[in-house]
Structures are given as structure tokens and as C-alpha cells.
């Protein structure tokens, strides 16, 4: 008798695991750096009706391999099915569904805000609280760079919006596992 194999399997006791996790997932995907790879990944998502929240693509320490980091909503999509479909792409080498507690995730955003003389100092105070940087100044506007979790960036956006948000640019999240692993 092999360990872990039950003596009797009663049909009425068989269960299927839940399909939806109900939380946001960050998938970190290593792909071969070949033409058309991004189109394959993006095409798979659109064809299967999976909705990507954010997508970031960049090089890794190996020039033949790129990393795609994407976030999607596990309340809407069965993540297991998403990763299994991704694995079928021959150019996809490795997929990691990042565990929230064991992951450092960061996103960068830049906000261009109307900043007349009256409210300029207030905006700069917000920036300080959020440890954001003023990266460009003009007569009527300030451009502020914020780095942090998606939550932090969204909080900053809520604070700044009443002052007149001219434009916002976000990179989408990237993530790395905590510890030496």
C-alpha cells in the first residue's frame, strides 16, 4: 500500500477543488525571446476571454529569455486553466503564480497634475507623504513619479485627482519572490 492512497474510494466523498480563487494574481512568465511571442501570449488571452489587468514585458539576466509579468483577477478567471493554456505555448518556459505573502510587487506611475501657485505646495506635500518624486515642473503643472504597490499608486491617484489630473501613465506591476529563492 503506497502512502497517501486511501483503502477505499467512496464516490460520494469525491470533491472537486474550487475553480476561482477570488483574489488578484500576479503571473511571472519566462518566455523565449523570439519574434511573435508576445502576440502568442496576448492572442491566447483574448481568444480564451481572459482579461489581463496589467502587462509588463522586459529582459532578464539571460538575453535569450524575456519576462512577462501580468496580473489578472482570480475572481473572474480560473487561474489554473490560464496557466495550463499558457504552458501549451512552446515558447513559454516557466510560469510562476506569485504567492502574495512571499512576493515583492512594484509598479511605477507618473502623474501630470495642474499646479497653480495656490495649490502647488499642497501637491508637493502629498508627494512627500507618498515618497514620490517631482520629476518635471512647468508654470502650470507638476509631474510626479510614484513607485509602489498598485494599491499605493491608486491611493495617490485619489488624492491628486481633485487638483486636476492632466495625464497618468502606469507601467503595470512587476514582482519578485522574497528571500533567496
Amino acid at each position, binding site marked *: 500500500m503506497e502512502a*497517501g*492512497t486511501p483503502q477505499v*474510494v467512496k*464516490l460520494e466523498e469525491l470533491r472537486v477543488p474550487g475553480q476561482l480563487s477570488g483574489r488578484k494574481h500576479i503571473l511571472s512568465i519566462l518566455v523565449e525571446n523570439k519574434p511573435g511571442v508576445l502576440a502568442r501570449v496576448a*492572442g491566447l488571452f483574448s481568444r480564451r476571454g481572459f482579461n489581463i489587468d496589467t502587462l509588463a514585458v522586459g529582459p532578464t539576466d539571460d538575453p535569450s529569455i524575456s519576462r512577462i509579468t501580468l496580473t489578472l483577477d482570480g475572481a473572474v478567471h*480560473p487561474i489554473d486553466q490560464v496557466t495550463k493554456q499558457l504552458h*501549451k*505555448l*512552446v515558447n513559454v518556459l516557466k510560469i510562476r503564480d506569485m504567492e502574495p505573502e512571499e512576493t515583492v510587487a512594484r509598479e511605477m506611475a507618473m502623474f501630470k497634475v495642474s499646479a497653480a501657485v495656490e495649490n502647488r505646495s499642497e501637491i508637493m506635500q502629498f508627494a512627500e507623504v507618498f515618497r514620490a518624486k517631482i520629476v518635471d515642473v512647468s508654470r502650470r503643472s507638476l509631474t510626479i513619479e510614484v513607485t509602489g504597490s498598485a494599491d499605493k499608486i491608486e491611493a495617490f491617484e485619489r488624492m491628486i485627482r481633485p487638483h486636476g489630473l492632466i495625464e497618468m501613465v502606469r507601467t503595470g506591476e512587476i514582482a519578485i519572490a522574497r528571500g533567496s529563492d
Partner: protein
Amino acid sequence: MHSLKAEGVEHVFGIPGGANLPTYDALVDAEFRHIQVRHEQGGGHAAEGYAKASGRVGVAFATSGPGATNLVTAIADAMLDSVPTVFITGQVRTELIGTDGFQEADILGATLPFVKHSFAVTDPRQIPEYVHEAFHVAATGRPGPVLLDIPQDLSRADIEYAPRTEPVELAGYKPPSAPNVKQVRIAAKAMANARRPILYTGGGVINANASEELRELVAADRFPVTSTVMGLGAYPASGEQWLGMLGMHGTRTANYAMDEADLIVAIGARFDDRITGKLSEFAPRAKFIHIDIDPAEISKNVPAHIPIVGDAKLVLPALTREYRALQTDPARHEEWWKRIRAWQEEYPLHYEQGEDGEIKPQFMIEAMHRATGGDAIVTSDVGQHQMWAAQYYGFDRPRRWINSGGLGTMGFGLPAAVGAKVACPEETVVCLAGDGSLIMNCQELATCVSQEIPVKVFLMNNGYMGMVRQWQELFWDRRYSSVEMGPSPDWVKLAEAFGATGLRCEDSGELEETMARALDADGPVLVDVRVSPEENCFPMIPAGAAARDMVG
């Protein structure tokens, strides 16, 4: 060419053009046979028919632009039916790519959603490597189509060819083979505890060449067996435990048994909507064991209680062994079989015989069975005739039934028969065609004649696109809209115009004899069989309904 030869390629289907001139020039000296088809779609389906009949990789060539886009339907077809195929397209010269050059089409981009994988050659030295990788990916794991797009200037470059000695290794491609032993053991125990089990098999069993292994599992106990349209022949239709096909046009027995089963063992099948009907009411009492080589199929449509990822060729013997070791009591299926036998008695497949020599389509399939000894390779188009063949021909062996199940491509049958006959020249190959479908690729009759490929086309001619007509009759208040095929071509004259033999039959009393004449004749023959025009294919599960609400 060296690379193709090294892959054991003996036959290629295709059409030359500007962008693949270098390839076709090399073909003159190549040691394999090229079958010049008359339309690239025909070449693609011929490659599929070749692969489905033989289990080997089918290969088709096309030139750039329209040649390549004509292949698209065949590529999509091969994807949905998991057919091991390699499609090699010419592309415009490298410096013209992206300029909308003459006969330029982004075939790689166009086919991304339905290839298993594809390669764009950017350096001539990649060609041998990519060819080997293409064959490897096409044939292993869950098989499928692979596209190789080669710009004209790169295909004419002289490169050194060194025979490959190493097996192909792709970092991102590791198809599973052996199953998890523990999962197999749990599955066997669940099967041992089932009172109303059923085996639901699909095309995966045929792709895995696991018919023998399936038959051994069935023989291990009194498991009833049903199959999708893609899996027919894996378990013999004449077998004791066969319930008939399941799904939209399956038997009531098979569908009712699925509905009442307490354990469904799915083997190489994917719970397609034509099988499940209304998903929320599908097999409400059942637990599921799902065996598939493609992990993404497991729990895609129906959540599996016991998933087993692996090659059916390895999973089934392991499961049979584990099951036999449990020494179960076959008597516990007694009640279940009583119920099944009662359904079989009450709801056999049936139809009213025609009067005054009228040929009923179902009768035509039965006549075809008798005329061919029940053992022809039968290819089919898509529609009523396909479903009647699936119901009435009674396939006893795998790779005898070749049809387009997933994509449902009308016009598939004739070119697929060309491919099947090339793969199996000693076998009788019959294309069972519909009149709506046959005309879509009838140009391949020219291929049959010029390339001396003696396929026999049995045309079920009812003057309609019959399945669409049936739906309009049953679900759209009989408002017929563009389903009449008349005035039809004179099929006998058309066959003769191509240089084939044309025969016609309008009397049920003469049908079998006419078919026998066609089978005995040399060369390709088309038999125009005039059947009842408005016969419906029953039973059926209306689209979106539950299995127990079958009609007809």
C-alpha cells in the same frame, strides 16, 4: 528536403507558386512523392486524411499569400481534431516582408490562434532544425498542426546539411507520457465502487493508438462504453458493451446512461458542447475521472474529481492492472445493465423504410456497410450524412472513420479520402459526401484522376444542405433560407468531365449492386445516390438542451 527525408516523409501534398519555387525545384530530385492537388485547402485536408488514416505526420506545401491563406481552414481543422500535420508555406523575399509585396500575407500571424506551434525562418541555417522541431511538436503529446514559413530567398540558399543525431529537445515543450501512479490507483478504486459506471472515449484513444488497451480495460469488467464521433472504432461497434455514439446525434441509450451514471471515465475526450448539451444539466449524478494527455483539457468544461494526465497508451494498461487487482464483483453492475438493456430495447436507432424504391439515407449507409464488408476507410463531409454514417456504419476498427468533428468543415471528405488512399493504397477508401459539401472541394476529383488515386465517392444527394434544412424545419418554423442546392450539377457528367467514372442510383433495390460496381471499377468513381430529400437525422439533443430531452 534532406530534413523531410530524415523525418521519414514519403508523401507531400501541395501546389507550387512564386514564393516556393526553390522548394519545388528541389522536389524534382527528391525521393518522396509529391501529390499535386488542385486547391491548397484540398492539400491541407489531404495531409489530414493521410495522418488520420496512417497515424503518421501529414505534410502540405503552399506558396505565399493566397496559397497560404487557402490552407487556413485545413490548419484550423487539424487544430480542433488534434491531427499531426506540418504545413510549409513560402513567404515573399526577406526584404519585401512588411511592404505588402505581391502575394504577401502574414500567414504566421493569421494562424496563431490555431496552430500548435509555428516557426518563421529568418536564417537559412535554421531550416533543418526547425523542420525537425516541427515534426517533433506535431507528432508528440497531443498532436496538432505546425506551420513553417520560409521566405523565398532563404529557401534557395545553399546550406550544409548534417544529419541530426540527437533527439529534439525544446526547453518549453515537455509533453507528458506516464501517468501519476497514485492517481491511477485512486481511479481504479473509484471504478470499483461505482454502481453505474460508463466509459466515455474520444479521438484521443485513436491518436494514442490505444484501442487494444481500451478493449482490455472494457474486458476487465462489464463497463458500458460510448464514444464521441472522433473516437468511433476504438471500441468495436459490434462489441457487447457498446452503447453507440453519444452526444447531439448519439443514441438515447448512450445519452441516458451518461445522464444516470454515477461515475464517468472520460478517456481522450474533451466534454465539447456537442457532447454535454446544456452544461449545467450534464450528467448531474456523476463523478468524473478524466484521462487526457493535455492537462488544459482537464476541468476546462467539466471539473474532474480524479484527473489523470498522461498518454492513454500508458494510462489504460496501468488502470486495467490496478482494477483487476481489486477483484471486484461483476454482479454489482447487474441492475445497471438491466436498465441499459431496457433502453436499448425501447429506443434502438430506427427509420422508416422507403417505398417504391425510395432510398432512405440511413439505408444508404447500411448498403455501404454491406458493399464494403463493413471495413472500408470511410471519410465524410459534414452534415446529416456524417451523423448517419456515425450512427449506422458500425466501425469496428480505429482509423477507419475519418471526419471533421471539431471544426465541422464541409468539403473535408474528398481531399481527406485522397490523403487516406495515398497513405493506405491497399485499402478501400470511400468518401461519403453530401451534395452541399462535395461541391466545395470537388476540384480534387481532378487530383484523383491525374494522380491515379482511386477513391470512391458515394454522394448522398438530397438536394439540400440537409442539416441546416433540418434545423430550419425544426427550430425556425420551416422557413427555408438558402438551403436548396438545385438546380444541381449533373454529378455523373461532372465526374466524367474530370475523367472519372460517374454512376447514378435512384432505386434502393439497385443500390448495393451499384456500389459494388463502383468498388470493383478501376480508378476514381462517383456514385450520385438520390436519397429522400427531407429525411431528418434523429435522435437529437436540440442545441442547449439537456441529454434527457432528446427528440426524435
